[in-house]
């Protein structure tokens, strides 16, 4: 009889689809499926987990146990005691952290990016950019460890599911392992919404002529709710804006409702990063610039006059 364990991350709202996917995948790989869950709410999730086929939940409800350093130690002890054949982890930050730390302790095989498991030592993955599917046999000491990609299995309750037996696990680890230690914290500079999810993007290019041009754009973005400032590669290359604000083939891809391109001629490299925008407004002194052809609205003129006037008008109408 083979046993597969699932490491379930139980959020405050209770066990969710992420854990149920792992359970569904684990049922295809082993006869018995059990769960290990660390952190508050773990015991309480026994009913939901049981409905999805978990016979037993090794639970530790202590908040400090969510630390991967502590989790790996406890998990190693549980494995030595109960000897499962396979442990499945979700491909999440915490899952990867825990699986890697556990692997370093047990020396077992750890496979990442799996899309399915078909037995205690069989897993499937995609290689070469997803163009090939390969079946992999896992070797080395048991249990084999597998990181399953999200949405690899369909969550499905079992017919004979019941409340899983809860096996309380003592949080018996050295204090210094319990808390993740934060050494430094770095906050990415910038205010307002991030480029990726801004509703309106105001982007500038070489046509701005200087870093001061971006101050004019920042004022415009400030006047529009949910707007962020981006830049073309030329403006970033010139050192006017940080690389993080670059939009294009080798920068970010944005798909805002409105894209306001100021002084951007529209090189292919840039268009690739913003052509999914719903509406494009181009401001340029050159009426023949490629960006003008792409734009729903093109303004030919001096951006130093037009942009501040636009900012002022928006402020007047929105009353801000």
């Amino acid at each position: 009889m083979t046993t597969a364990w699932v490491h379930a991350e139980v959020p405050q709202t209770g066990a969710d689809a992420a854990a149920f996917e792992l359970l569904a995948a684990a049922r295809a790989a082993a006869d018995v499926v059990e769960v290990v869950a660390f952190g508050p709410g773990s015991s309480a999730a026994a009913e939901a987990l049981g409905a999805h086929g978990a016979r037993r939940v090794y639970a530790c409800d202590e908040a400090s146990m969510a630390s991967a350093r502590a989790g790996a130690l406890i998990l190693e002890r549980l494995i030595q005691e109960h000897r499962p054949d396979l442990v499945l982890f979700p491909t999440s930050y915490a899952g990867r952290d825990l699986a890697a730390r556990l692997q370093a302790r047990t020396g077992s095989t750890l496979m990442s990016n799996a899309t399915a498991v078909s037995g205690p030592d069989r897993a499937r993955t995609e290689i070469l950019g997803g163009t090939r599917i390969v079946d992999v046999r896992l070797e080395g000491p048991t249990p084999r460890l597998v990181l399953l990609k999200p949405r690899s299995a369909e969550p499905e309750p079992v017919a004979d599911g019941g409340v899983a037996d809860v096996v309380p696990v003592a949080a018996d680890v050295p204090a210094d392992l319990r808390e993740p230690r934060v050494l430094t914290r770095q906050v990415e500079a910038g205010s307002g919404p991030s480029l990726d999810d801004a509703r309106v993007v105001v982007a500038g290019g070489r046509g701005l002529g200087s870093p001061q041009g971006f101050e004019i754009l920042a004022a415009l973005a400030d006047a529009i709710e949910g707007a962020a400032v981006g830049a073309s590669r030329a403006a970033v290359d010139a050192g006017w804006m940080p690389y993080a604000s670059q939009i294009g083939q080798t920068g970010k891809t944005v798909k805002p409702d409105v894209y306001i391109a100021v002084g951007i001629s529209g090189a292919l490299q840039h268009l690739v990063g913003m052509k999914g925008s719903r509406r494009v407004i181009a401001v340029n002194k050159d009426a023949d610039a490629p960006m003008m052809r792409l734009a729903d609205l093109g303004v030919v003129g001096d951006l130093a006059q037009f942009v501040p006037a636009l900012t002022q008008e928006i402020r007047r109408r929105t009353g801000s």
Partner: protein
Amino acid sequence: MRGAIVRTARVDAERDAQRGRVGRELTHVLGQRKLFQKLTPGLMHAFIFWGFLVLLPTIAEAMLAIVDPSWSLPILGHWPPFVFAVDLFASLVIAGVGVAFWIRKVQRPDRFRGSHLRDADRTLVAILAIAGTLLLWNATRVALGTYPHPAAAPVSRALANLFAGGAGTETASRILVWSHVLIVLGFLAYLPGSKHLHILTAVPNVWLAKPRPSGRLVPLRLDLEGPQEDLRFGAGTAADLSRKQTLDLFTCTECGRCQEVCPAWATGKPLSPKLLIMDLRDHVSTQAERVLSARAGGVVELQPLVPAAVDDEVVWDCVTCGACVRECPVDIEHVDTIVDLRRHLVMAESRFPTEAGRLLRGIEGANENPWSQPPSARVDWAEGLDVRILQPGDRAPEYLFWVGCAGAFDERAQEATRSVARLLAATGTDFAILGPRERCTGDPARRMGHEYLFQQLAERNIEVLGETGVTKIVASCAHCFNTLANEYPDYGGRFEVIHHTELLARLIGQGRLTPGPDARAGTATLHDPCYLGRHNGVFEAPREIVGAAAGATVEMPRSKERSFCCGAGGARMWMEELEGTTRINDARFAEAAATGADVVATACPYCTVMLDDAAKSAGSDVRVADVATLLAESVLDAPAAGPGA
């Protein structure tokens, strides 16, 4: 150990190194041709190299003379021309060492940065001592009257004045011949651990070098259905390096000629081809025992080449321009090794600069081009022009015009594409394009290391090209041109491939295109695209066009074989260039602008885009345009001129 590592390494059957081997040995080794690319160091090296070839028999003579002082070389040693040659070349070796020390101690060129300078000093002192003791020994023999034909040895005769003859000279003679032989033997013992080992490895290394054109990469041939043991995803550890790749490492003398011409190094990037080879060599040396035991079937853990030997960034800095390979006197092939390192990173580890991911996804995706543009947009440039789009089953044209993704989609490159099409139409050339059925040739994927993706694209393109029945292809992009001409034959795609500059130059030569003198652009300077020029030897065709279409031409300091890359090759077009002191395109544009030219003429869409970007960021009004654009303006747009014939 070094020998065993090379011997047990995998032999690349794909190298096709049969052609031109003997010729290369004669020109590169005996003729020292690549060394003469730098005149003074070339002469210095040739003196020493040719000197030692001549002096080899005298070393044998000295060894036997230790046993019997009266012994001299039979026949050869008594032949006055040889006696003279020994005298002359021993002196030239000493002169060569002098020049070498002058270069190293006085000139101190930057190419030696990072090289083992003391190893070189020791080697030079040994060479000096070998030649010096020989000359002095000969001088004692002249003084003692035991030297055959002293008349043919003016230097030895002059030195003989130092010796009075008699017992003192006899003792000096014994000391000198013993020193000579001991220094030679000591040097031979020092050699295997030294970079001077090239005197033994250069000959086989040149023998194993790839034949031209240098634009063809050695294929990997991934057969995913074949036996797993044969699957190789590039070079991950020291054990994966092929025999040539390993021999390259032990052949490098750290002369730094590659470093001097490398665009990455010149613009302050961490990559130097010389340091790359040295780092790999040092790594392979420390891993030697493990590599040998792995190859003998043992289970050992080998460190990954990247980053244990070489940093990630170094691997990605390369523009594959081939300047290093061309410059290397002993035919080290840096570019193939770098691409092999990339292959492992990309295919086995999925590790590459993040921003290049979109390039691969674009080529892999349904649109099959780097910018993920819809295939239907491939013909947008032809709007308003009479260009035949080849449909399945259509009659094959004489020339298939391979437009390329950049030429089809990039605003600035489209100008050249339109010009080529207009010129071909004006001369009545029978041509057609594939239109939406064209896709990326796979060049950027291959240069980035994604051999599998390249292979898929090559196979699909060859299938489509085969169905059309065309035999001749004219390509506009230098990268497409290189891939179609040099790399597709490895996958069964054999076509007569020419570049648009070659076809247009031919049409000018036939009098079918006559540029109008009134419409000539001002002074133009030609930037040789690496994949047209250095990698494929097409230098004259673009010059003929510029010569015809421009009022005057001027050459940049670095041109033709020694052209300096625009920065876009090796898939760098789709990567950010954030490190370094300058960007490569800015450096090249500055060089072009310094000639005083009004126009920088190019012949490749990558170069056009890169140099145009540089011109804009420099705020310069120097124009960047493809030679085809200049020609079209001169031939078609001139008020008084039209197409000839």
